[in-house]
């Protein structure tokens, strides 16, 4: 059987190997999980159950239920984002589908797509599957992993057509302030880049307010914003996300979406509607808990003398482990039964770091940090 070249060009995920190693062991505490440890708020779950009981099992409009799009439009105003529910919002099967559709809608074969790194592992493969040419733009620990004008210039991003952006960031937990984003916006306007901004962790911002790059001058018309229900509402398995963008962008994305997906899962759309209507407080409660764990983890690393920049968003810390991060992670798993993800899995700039997810109950986190301390002390 002949596999298409663009598929062969994408190596299997580096996370896979660690997953298999971790699965071999019995009593592993995993700090390697990229999803909330909470379940979706009960009200959202009952709305899903209720929709099934009422037999709501048909397709919805391609772009998603009108009522849900209207709620999304209302919801994103908290970030000063103003989008028309009829023309500028597309509900998708997770933010992942929105990203995939966007790559196919905006990237022509040979187009260069700048992806800052370390970053979520799906962006580069997404670019390749769309026939594009990924360009790695390393961010640096001395800038707290914020993307700078200089980083973009050094990597030669002026030749790119599209910039993929993700803040709050997976895996670093970095966030970007308005003034930091202004540099990126300046670069994008100067070199006419389109920006795909994955803001799935926006609600999990612990210091200051989340700022969307789309709110900066000259950016709305060249930006598509991605968000969803997985992280904020702990609804990963329900697979529901959305894209916000100018009408022509959403129209283009919907053209692909309507043929490939038809519409996002109906049950999940009902859950999402309820989540937006009544689960705001649950989101705040979960965020408060993550924030406490974040401080706990950061202060534990500080006590161990392990260098770790102050992650301000998502649910990850990104400590510096020095040298070979893959080996560190593997030995930590073998000796102390703690699973973490080596930073190099997330691309250039991630080497020598570990991604520590604190989407884990405090009791487990406490034990895991003690084991990491023992491991570090013994080295």
């Amino acid at each position, binding site marked *: 059987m002949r596999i298409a070249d663009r598929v062969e060009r994408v190596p299997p995920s580096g*996370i896979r190997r660690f997953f298999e190693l971790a699965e071999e062991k019995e009593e592993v505490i995993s700090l390697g999980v990229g999803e909330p440890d909470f379940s979706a708020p009960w009200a959202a779950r009952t709305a899903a159950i209720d929709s099934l009981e009422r037999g709501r099992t048909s397709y919805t409009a391609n772009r998603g239920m009108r009522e849900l799009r209207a709620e999304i439009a209302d919801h994103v105003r908290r970030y000063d984002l103003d989008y028309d529910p009829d023309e500028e919002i597309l509900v998708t099967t997770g933010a992942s589908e929105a990203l995939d559709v966007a790559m196919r809608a905006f990237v022509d074969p040979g187009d260069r797509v700048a992806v800052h790194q370390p970053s979520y592992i799906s962006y580069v493969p997404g670019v390749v599957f769309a026939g594009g040419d990924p360009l790695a733009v390393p961010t640096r620990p001395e800038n707290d992993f914020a993307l700078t004008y200089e980083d973009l210039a050094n990597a030669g991003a002026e030749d790119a057509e599209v910039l993929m952006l993700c803040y709050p960031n997976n895996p670093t937990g970095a966030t970007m302030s308005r003034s930091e984003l202004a540099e990126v916006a300046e670069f994008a306007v100067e070199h006419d880049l389109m920006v795909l901004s994955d803001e799935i962790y926006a609600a999990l911002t612990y210091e200051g307010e989340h700022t969307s790059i789309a709110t900066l001058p000259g950016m709305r018309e060249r930006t598509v914003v991605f968000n969803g229900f997985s992280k904020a509402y702990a609804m990963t398995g329900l697979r529901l996300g959305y894209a916000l963008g100018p009408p022509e962008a959403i129209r283009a994305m919907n053209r692909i979406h309507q043929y490939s997906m038809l519409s996002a899962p109906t049950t999940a759309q009902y859950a999402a509607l309820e989540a937006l209507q009544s689960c705001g407080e649950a989101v705040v409660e979960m965020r408060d808990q993550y924030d406490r764990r974040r401080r706990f983890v950061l202060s534990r690393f500080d006590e161990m003398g392990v260098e770790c920049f102050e992650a301000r968003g998502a649910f990850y810390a990104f400590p510096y482990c020095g040298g070979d991060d893959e080996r560190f992670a593997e030995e930590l798993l073998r000796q102390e039964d703690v*699973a973490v993800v080596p930073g190099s899995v997330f691309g250039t700039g991630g080497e020598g770091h570990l991604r520590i997810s604190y989407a884990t109950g405090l009791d487990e986190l406490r034990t895991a940090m003690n084991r990491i301390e023992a491991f570090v002390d013994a080295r």
Partner: protein
Amino acid sequence: MDDRREILELLLSNAREDTTDLARQTGLDEETVEECIESLETDGVVRGYQAIVDWSRLDEEHVQAEIELNVELDRETGYDDISQRIAKFPQVASLRLISGDYDFAVSVEGDSMHDVSRFVAEQIAPIPEVTQTVTHFVMETYKERGVSFGEKDDDDRLSISP
């Protein structure tokens, strides 16, 4: 949220958390944490720390009852006066004045149904202001002060995910 409120929040979810861990989670130093706890206690905000117990898991009888209590007030006797008489009994676990069809909701605990019935009949009902008591024995507890007694949700997440 101010520091004291934040500490209260943490104690509400786990009163056994030690000072060092409270400090780590809040970013406060241990001394400040201890000051917060002390002021919560001296100001009477925090009135005590107790275990939440699922009595059905113990090999002994333990009976709980919710009692509806109606009283009649007069010029000399108010709710506060009556509440003091009732609250002093060690069998009374909680006592609340509530709105609706009756005046006081009383939670009573004892070693047997007989104990509880006798307590209500001999100590509560004879109080001159009490006009009516309705005793509801607790048959099963599913959730107590925010803690569910059912099976815990298993963590069904993959051990490593992107």
